[in-house]
């Protein structure tokens, strides 16, 4: 279980905060004894139709602003790693309060991680954030048999956001996770 405590974070080595790209780095001790440089990136959602939505990513750096989000790491304190990222996200949101941060849960492993993190830290995160879960749904056509489909026959999914439902277990994951500054 990942425990988020934004009063207990790693020291940031440097940082930049802007509406184009926000980035910071810190060192995370590993179980095997060394430390790994970690980078947090908050950048606009790739869809230009969603100008106030930002994506958050965390992982070892690649180049000057990218991250490796596929590498498996064994942090000494995963909670502290995530707390550091969440604190940076909170700082970003206080600078740009109209924005909302999204976490893509398409991959089951990541969705489980985000879902569990939201549930396990309901109180600590709820102090600062509104949390939102997004499901996809498809419309049942009036013939009661078929569903709305794209031209290629695939289901026509639409997003349905709701206030994060804490009664949903990790066996009932959302497809996308979001959090924004609490009013």
């Amino acid at each position, binding site marked *: 279980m990942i425990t988020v405590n*934004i*009063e207990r974070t790693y020291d*940031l080595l*440097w*940082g*930049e*905060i*802007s509406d*184009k*790209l*926000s*980035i*910071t780095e810190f060192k995370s001790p590993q179980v095997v004894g060394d430390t790994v440089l970690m980078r947090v*990136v908050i*950048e*606009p*959602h*790739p*869809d230009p*139709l*969603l100008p*106030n*939505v930002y*994506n958050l990513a965390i992982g070892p750096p*690649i*180049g*000057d*602003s*990218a*991250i490796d989000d596929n590498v498996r790491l064994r942090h000494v304190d995963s909670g502290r790693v995530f707390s550091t990222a969440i*604190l*940076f996200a*909170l*700082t970003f949101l*206080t*600078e740009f309060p109209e924005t*909302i941060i*999204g976490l*893509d*849960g*398409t991959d089951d492993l990541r969705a489980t991680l985000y879902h569990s993190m939201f549930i396990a830290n309901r109180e600590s995160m709820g*102090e*600062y954030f*509104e949390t*939102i879960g*997004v499901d*996809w749904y498809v419309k049942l056509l009036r013939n009661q048999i078929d569903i709305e489909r794209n031209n290629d026959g695939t289901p026509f*999914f*639409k*997003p*349905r*956001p*709701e*206030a994060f439902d804490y009664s949903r277990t990790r066996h009932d994951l959302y*497809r*996308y996770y*979001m959090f*924004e500054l*609490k*009013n």
Partner: protein
Amino acid sequence: MNSHVQGKIDDIKKLAARPKAGHVVSSGTKRQSTDGLSMAIRTQKDADTFMTELKAIRKKAS
């Protein structure tokens, strides 16, 4: 917000305002072309509906 957390936020903002020695960041070099959400948002209408629903959730929560 408690004063300790507010202090940490202020410290990060000060850190971010400092000139960076030897580190130049070009914005958005690794932007994905798509993700799960963008696959479900196809048109401006989809996006407007989605953002309106998000606003309604925020309003209800306040």
